[in-house]
């Protein structure tokens, strides 16, 4: 199917078109078209769920979906699992654990992340943007079970949630750089198991010593349902890290696009001609380009 047909399908809210465009984007195809969309009309709130393998990320996401649905939000889940660096193959099993509901307001998609590189799939920003364009209100990104040193997802998420569980290690675990500092919200999962309170205390005191911004620590159990509504409320209400503002590379991409756009302005053509003929130097041309083609001048 042609790319233009797929975009037509997107506008008609055809899930197959969304699915195919995501496949293409994850392979690096059609990225330029997605970038040209500019900022979304209705930005989604993007949550990243991270934590070691076996901590219960997929199961917890499965419990969060109905919470968002009850609050009238549509939800897209992007579940990343590792891809073999040797064969390129992947077994994507998160969907099964989420108990994927048959609901038009929910989209669950499994993506493979090249192992050894990062905990999220390639071109995830473009995939997120596609889900926003389709109209999903909440996007949950499940990272590969990494936990330590997994920071790539920060650039694209409004909130990063780190899952821990009882018996995950001694107090020094929390002192390792990168473990606690990436999270906006800490969840002690499997809180029905013994030792959960102790882990919560250790984490709280480690966070206190670190002295950074206040990070909530919640006790949650997918088995008993403890803390699930509270977690959903926190996700809905916590201020988001400004995902399109604080990331330098995202800012640069936007700035570049803005400049390209301005170069199509009639004043830019004149300035270019003047510069080419040597009447003004490049600094002067740039200064005047920014002045004369600003939004108010357009």
């Amino acid at each position, binding site marked *: *199917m042609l790319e233009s047909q797929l975009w037509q399908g997107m506008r008609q809210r055809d*899930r*197959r078109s969304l*699915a*195919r465009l*995501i*496949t293409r984007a994850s*392979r690096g195809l059609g990225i330029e078209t997605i970038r040209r969309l500019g900022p979304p009309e209705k930005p989604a709130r993007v949550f990243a769920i991270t934590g070691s393998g076996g901590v219960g990320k997929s199961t917890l996401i499965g419990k969060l979906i109905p919470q968002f649905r009850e609050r009238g939000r549509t939800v897209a889940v992007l579940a990343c699992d590792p*891809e*073999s660096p040797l*064969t*390129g*193959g*992947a*077994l*994507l*099993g998160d*969907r*099964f654990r989420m108990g*994927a509901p*048959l609901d038009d307001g929910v*989209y*669950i*998609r*499994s993506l*493979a992340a090249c192992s050894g590189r990062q905990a999220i799939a390639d071109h995830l920003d473009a995939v997120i943007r596609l889900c926003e364009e389709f109209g999903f209100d909440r996007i949950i990104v499940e990272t590969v079970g990494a936990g330590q040193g997994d920071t790539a997802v920060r650039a694209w998420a409004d909130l990063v949630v780190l899952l821990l569980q009882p018996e995950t290690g001694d107090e020094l675990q929390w002192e390792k750089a990168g473990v606690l500092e990436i999270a906006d919200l800490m969840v002690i999962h499997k809180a029905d198991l013994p030792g959960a309170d102790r882990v919560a205390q250790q984490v709280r005191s480690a966070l206190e010593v670190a002295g950074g911004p206040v990070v909530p620590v919640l006790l949650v159990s997918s088995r008993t349902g403890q803390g699930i509504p509270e977690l959903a409320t926190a996700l809905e209400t916590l201020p988001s890290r400004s995902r399109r503002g604080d990331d330098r590379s995202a800012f640069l991409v936007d700035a570049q696009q803005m400049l390209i756009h301005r170069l199509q302005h009639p004043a830019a053509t004149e300035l270019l001609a003047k510069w080419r003929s040597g009447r003004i130097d490049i600094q002067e041309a740039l200064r005047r380009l920014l002045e004369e083609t600003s939004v108010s001048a357009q």
Partner: protein
Amino acid sequence: MSHEPIRVVLAKVGLDGHDRGIKVVARALRDAGCHVIYAGLWQTVESVVRTVADEDADWLGLSILSGAHMTLVPQVMEALRQAGLEHVGVMVGGIIPEPDIPKLVNLGVSRVFGPGTPMHEIVEFVKSRRSAAHA
């Protein structure tokens, strides 16, 4: 390593708890470089078709050891058609009596793999016949 890995959804429909075979197939396809989406046990016809659509699958592999294949497979094929997913190739594995195989093929199933099928046969079949939409 393929730049465009073949996406295969593997699922069991209906009341059938035997998942050893499908897991072996999942592993073989994974090791052959496919992206395998394991949809798991006790799926309904509707949920399988939804998974195929949302995951942009090239192939759907159904494992049926309950004897209900002549009931379930026609339902799956019809639901795929209704969802506009006729380009997705369908394989069936499990305990399928010989006389039923041509009937399933008539319904649009690409291939039926019975017990004792060597893994490389399934892998080669999936790799040699990509579905039309991705060709």
